């Protein structure tokens, strides 16, 4: 589905990503965990087309996406649920969802968008109750669900989620991860970026550990969960903090 080879990128003079290689297969949940500032967001921004790669190769479904714009990536079926949700705050829930369906509308027409919106209301009943409410007035958890629903409106092949659980109450976090697991059960492919390593590894099939722009560990999620280094660096700290 997604293949990244020897990727290097960053901002102006600052090289953030160093020689990153990873892949995501269809139907998998792959997680990338790492501390704050490791370069996780930078990585998904490069894939989403928001940031140019300096070097390396990016393939999505066998197609070269090294120089593809964010609009084109969405059209190809690779969508990002951005960090900090980024909902259209001054627009209502329904408008947000319809906007998420922009690429679907171009491909299949308005009826398909309406149908998909009803699917999302079934998946996120709380959004159905708030159809006409402005997105900016929703709670953090509801905004996260809206951001996810908006991305899913595109009927994507790959969903990338950047720290969907950050800043949310434990109960909501649990709900979010339940939904992610449910997405895989429906056959979706997910690239999950998380600081909450334990929850992410529990839901994922495979994982990569990113540290200061390099992948230092990779493997099956269950193996990473059991790995001593991971436990010390990412799981232990969570139990204390």
């Amino acid at each position: 589905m997604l293949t990244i080879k020897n990727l290097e990128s960053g901002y102006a003079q600052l090289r953030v990503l160093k020689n990153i290689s990873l892949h995501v297969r269809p139907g998998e949940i792959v997680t990338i965990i790492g501390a704050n500032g490791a370069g996780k967001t930078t990585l998904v921004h490069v894939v989403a087309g928001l940031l140019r790669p300096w070097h390396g190769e990016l393939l999505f479904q066998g197609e070269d996406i090294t120089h593809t714009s964010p609009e084109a990536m969405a059209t190809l079926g690779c969508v990002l649920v951005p960090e900090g949700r980024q909902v259209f705050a001054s627009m209502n829930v329904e408008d947000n969802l319809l906007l998420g369906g922009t690429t679907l509308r171009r491909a299949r027409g308005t009826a398909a968008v309406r149908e998909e919106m009803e699917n999302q209301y079934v998946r996120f009943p709380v959004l159905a109750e708030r159809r006409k409410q402005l997105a900016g007035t929703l709670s953090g958890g509801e905004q996260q669900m809206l951001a996810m629903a908006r991305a899913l409106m595109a009927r994507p092949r790959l969903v990338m989620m950047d720290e969907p659980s950050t800043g949310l109450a434990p109960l909501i976090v649990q709900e979010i991860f339940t939904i992610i697991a449910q997405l895989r059960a429906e056959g979706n492919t997910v690239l999950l970026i998380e600081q909450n390593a334990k929850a992410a590894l529990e839901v994922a099939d495979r994982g990569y550990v990113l540290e200061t722009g390099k992948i230092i560990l990779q493997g099956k999620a269950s193996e990473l969960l059991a790995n001593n280094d991971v436990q010390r660096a990412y799981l232990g700290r969570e139990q204390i903090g």
Partner: protein
Amino acid sequence: MSPELFFQYLVAGITYGAVYAVVAIGFNIIYNSTGIINFAQGEFVMLGGMIAITFAQWLPLFWAISAAVAITMLIGALMELCCIRWLRNPGILQMLIITIGVSILLREAALHIWGEGIRSLPYFYGDAITAWTFGPVRLSPQVIWVLLACGCIVLALQAFFNRSALGREMRACAVNRTAASLCGIKTHNMVTLSFVLSAGMGAMAGCMISPITYTQYDSGASLALKGFTAAIIGGLGNSMAAVAAGLLLGILEAFSITVVPLAFQDAVAVTLLLLILFIKPHGLFGSSEAARLKAF
């Protein structure tokens, strides 16, 4: 003041105010999609008037105006395509200076094409002295035309932004451009579209006002100033408030004649603009909170 005079001033104020409102909406549309004030907005107004006057020699008035609006929209699109789009990471200042440059260019071009002469479009119905009488009020048919046209423009624009998919996408770009591009919206095209719409608004205002004032190669500046004042009073970016602010400005201007000499009428807008900027920079109807929520 006699009731007749009062209504006369009021009607004149509302008429001019409606045109200011349309110019203000033009400012707001580009402001919402790019974050800049388009200094060439006044030139769109002038071009609309000038082109319509030229075409009116050969075409019926309706078609002359339609052609003028269409051509001005094209110029707006070209302005964005040639001057703004290719900028990589356009800074606000950079874009501002470009619009000032385009404004000078358009004015000089108009001077070359049409010369310094003062022209005006014929009245849409009747002429300068035709009047309909309603009780104490005597109305020029042109006033009705202007109000009708402005009303239709505002309603059509509201419908476009709130009901159509394209309008929704434009709003999304104004609210959060990154998120809009992640939704697959072609944000560059939305910016072009905002220049097209804005140029169209300006051109229509130019055509409507031309019969009651005049059009000259540099007449855009004064209307742009009034429109800009209305946009600021309403709170930049908020078009419905701009309509109210435009009407308010027009009415204040009209009644100012009773207090200050006619020659100072233009000073009303500038005074009001400065006052607002000093006292309530987010606009009469806005707050700093609302200023961040852009609404067309």
